[in-house]
């Protein structure tokens, strides 16, 4: 009997800091059924949203979003994601070092981020179960 291959899950991860990209890559090293793709600029994320809408790119199962990026702030990406029909239902986890109650309220109440996670607090072994749980 041919092996049934389950579709690999896809996480799109917007993170500009290379060392953090290295860290999160290391975190997923043993995980085979999830593909993690990093985008290091806000504009690349906006382009990707457009491509998904045009059917030229794959829709991810989860978007991990940083807020302070070198070119565009993460909230703008989030807003665009929600405005675009094909991406408006992608679950979003904010993973940032940008604190502040107001931003957290904006992201989780005005927009609908499922989680607002501060990187220093959400170290890999704490973060990983939360992500894997959402990928089930």
């Amino acid at each position, binding site marked *: 009997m041919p092996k049934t291959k389950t579709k690999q899950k896809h996480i799109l991860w917007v993170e500009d*800091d290379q*060392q*953090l990209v290295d*860290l*999160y890559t*290391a*975190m997923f090293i043993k995980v085979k059924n999830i593909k993690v793709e990093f985008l290091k600029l806000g504009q690349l994320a906006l382009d990707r949203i457009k491509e998904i809408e045009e059917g030229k790119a794959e829709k991810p199962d989860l978007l991990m979003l940083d807020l*302070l990026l070198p070119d565009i702030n993460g909230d703008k990406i989030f807003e665009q994601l929600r405005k675009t029909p094909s991406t408006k239902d992608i679950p979003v986890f904010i993973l*940032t*070092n*940008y*604190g*502040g*109650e107001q*931003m957290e309220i904006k992201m989780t109440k005005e927009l609908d981020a499922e989680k607002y996670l*501060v*990187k*220093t*607090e959400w*170290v*890999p*072994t*704490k973060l990983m179960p939360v992500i894997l749980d959402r990928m089930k």
Partner: protein
Amino acid sequence: MLVYPLIKGNDVTGILLMGLSVDYSTLSNFEKESIKNCLDVTALLLDKAYLYKNLQASYEIEKIGKEQAKRAYEVERKAKEDVQELDKNKTEFMLITQHHLRTPLSVNAGFLDLLTQGEFGKIPKKINDIILELKESTDKEIKVVNELLDVSSYQLGKELTKLIPGVDIEDLLNETLKDLKIQAEKKGIYLKFEKEGVIPKISSDRTKLKIALTNIIDNCVKYTKQGGVTIILKSDNGTVIILVKDTGMGIAKELLPNLFNHTFQRSEEAKKQFAVGKGIGLFLSGKIIEGHHGKIWAESEGEGKGSTFHIELPVV
């Protein structure tokens, strides 16, 4: 020549001179009356003219006054706007600074976490001990960075305490102590909780009050080498009272009055013992209790004789 006084009330406001080509005494009564009427009207007109002139002058003064007031208002409004803008920029600056401080720390904390969890295989004990040291210092630094932002928010008055009624303080204290128990156990000191009587629920910003209580109890645990820390919860006359008593190093008398007013206040002895200060924590705790319309103060018989922190929170 006819001389006619202009009278307003009891005052003579002027004199009208009128030249006559005929002798006044030859004029008929009607003519005399007509001249008098004519002079009265002139007097009235002159009076109105004065009044008008005065009015105009006062209007001018008023106009200048109004303009000055408007300018002053504009200056004040601009100053207020500038202060608000400055506050906003300062907060934004702090948030961005914090982000930049946290980013390398999250790389450190992240890799150290993976290392200590054995994600990269077994590590020799000697190296593992060093990794644990690094992890501890990274965690400390993360805490300081977090507190820095909190302090700056409080100084700007941005982060206001949001009081919600019905908070169970006993429950909150149990939760706080759970986190600190491990630390006390590690040091070999006790951490006791005693409740006296029935404790009413209070209006509180639960998350912030937990930060304040954690800071104070953590401070006592940190500065106590022998004996331990006792937390007493009681209620009196519409107030919930929390006492945190320790058998630690005590607080110098001269530090007591301003213990909660200044950041980075530590005794010389405390500086010798610990690298990372708790001054920020006490300042922050003071602000949080203030936000609860409560009182906080500390008592100590002096250095080496333990200390007691008093917290009073109104039941509203």
